[in-house]
């Protein structure tokens, strides 16, 4: 007789009774719960009852017009800088792995330079470029001017921030993408080459999609980081969330209150991004796991149904939700 759970239809009596044992007690879990709750309560109490604290101001500014406008600008900065970062990062990573030494070297230099200088300095550089180059012109040899503009018109404070954040991000993304590309097994490249696919086609259709599974989690991390780093656009006087917070608190001196307002919004936005990241990762996991992991909603529903479910009994239990539809 083979050992293991009885096959459907086999006599139920063959399976021994399910184990009923008294679980191990965890007294320290209760103690630590009490300690943590006490500390959190104390901290909240201190802030709520702080003598200089004006919760009314927090409430007033949380949905204030200037703050909401600042949020829109912060989101614009984040999205645009990440788009530049990801696109240019992929290009740089592919260039870095190119057999053409010049192309590979250009990419190496780019990463070395933009990763090696602070992003704050880079934003500052673009913002102040007009002080040394008042005009930017593009002309072909022979004197014909294709394009001519004042640097201040061309690089607005917003553009300066986008350039600083985006070009810096591209250097980091290039390394993330490169790590993803080299994580794909070489046999994949060979199989694709054997089918007659060109280098770029192999990269685009075979290697890059598989590398995404490795690329996406750190990219989500970078996006969340970018949302907060975009506050450096402050130095270019871009009216994003932190700039707005500064402007308001400079006028009314509710510094901590406005810091709390900004923190609530930054936390809210990063929380939404975290959820989004989960779903993107799930999409790129297809083909690597036999079944996709459950979404949080599915897991919650499953928990509601199975939390109080009785321990598995011998014999078929038709009412349990099936894991394999």
């Amino acid at each position, binding site marked *: 007789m083979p050992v293991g759970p009885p096959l459907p239809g086999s006599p139920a009596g063959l399976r021994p009774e399910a184990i009923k044992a008294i679980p191990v007690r965890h007294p320290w879990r209760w103690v630590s719960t009490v300690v943590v709750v006490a500390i959190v309560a104390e901290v909240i109490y201190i802030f709520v009852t702080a003598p200089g604290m004006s919760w009314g101001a927090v409430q007033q500014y949380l949905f204030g017009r200037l703050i909401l406008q600042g949020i829109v600008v912060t989101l614009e900065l984040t999205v645009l800088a990440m788009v530049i970062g990801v696109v240019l990062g992929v290009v740089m990573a592919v260039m870095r792995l190119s057999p053409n030494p010049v192309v590979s070297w250009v990419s190496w230099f780019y990463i070395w330079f933009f990763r090696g200088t602070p992003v704050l300095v880079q934003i500052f550089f673009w913002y102040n470029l007009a002080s040394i180059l008042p005009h930017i012109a593009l002309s072909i040899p022979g004197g014909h001017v294709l394009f001519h503009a004042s640097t201040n018109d061309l690089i607005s404070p917003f553009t300066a921030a986008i350039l600083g954040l985006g070009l810096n991000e591209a250097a980091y993304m290039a390394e993330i993408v490169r790590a993803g590309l080299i994580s794909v097994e070489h046999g994949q490249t*060979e*199989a694709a080459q054997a089918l*007659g696919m060109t280098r770029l086609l192999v990269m685009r*259709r075979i290697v890059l999609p598989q590398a995404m599974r490795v690329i996406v989690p750190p990219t989500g991390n970078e996006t969340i980081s970018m949302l907060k780093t975009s506050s450096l656009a402050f130095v270019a006087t871009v009216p994003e969330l932190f700039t707005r917070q500064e402007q308001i608190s400079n006028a009314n001196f509710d510094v901590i209150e406005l810091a709390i307002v900004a923190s609530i919004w930054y936390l809210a936005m990063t929380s939404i991004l975290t959820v989004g990241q989960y779903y993107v990762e799930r999409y790129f996991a297809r083909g690597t796991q036999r079944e996709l992991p459950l979404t949080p909603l599915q897991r919650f529903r499953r928990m509601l149904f199975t939390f109080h479910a009785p321990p598995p009994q011998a014999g078929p239990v038709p009412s349990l939700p099936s894991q394999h539809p």
Partner: protein
Amino acid sequence: MVKAEAVHKSFGRLEVLRGIDLEVYPKEVMCIIGPSGSGKSTFLRCINHLEKIDAGRLSVDGELVGYRERGNQLYELPDREICRKRSEIGMVFQRFNLFPHMTALENIAEAPIQVKKMSRSTAEAQARSLLERVGLADKVKAYPNQLSGGQQQRVAIARALAMEPKLMLFDEPTSALDPELVGEVLDVMRALANDLGMTMVVVTHEMGFAREVGDSLVFMDGGVVVEAGKPREVLANPQHERTRQFLSKVL
């Protein structure tokens, strides 16, 4: 179909191929056997230019692999030409190397769509009939990790066939399979040889397959062809001591 003359190949200081001479004729099934490290897989990979040869001449269908000859001078082929030539040669790998992010159908239709610029509907119809041919009509939407090793290898064969190759290379196609799954892959290969009259070069350890399906058998050791001939004759009556030693261990 394939002609090798004094083919040499080194990896750094290690000389893996030390003068291979052989010829594969159209519709021939050639099986290559030999101990590991004998250079048989490397030779196979040279045929579709996954490896570059250092010396000698290697040609497929009368055209040099990787070079063009004009006068007495060899010119390296540009990437595009190499890709075009590879697309006419099918290859099946020991580790299957299916694309894990694509279903069985997508794996097969990918190269016809991207390389041959076939329309998606035509490519998918062809992929379906190929899946049927390898006995996996019901696995159209399965991802590789939902398939057994034997099924994956059959999809890999279908994927190679989708490019309508004039030559198929098999690099130990059953070595990574559980023993009970070897048969289904060999059956598909046998059908290829018998029904389609496909020209095949098979690096293998399956002596039964070599005897039944192979038209010729090559024993390689130390980067050279030690012995070649009709499979039954070589297996039953090896002429060289080294062949005898090897066969006594694997038969």
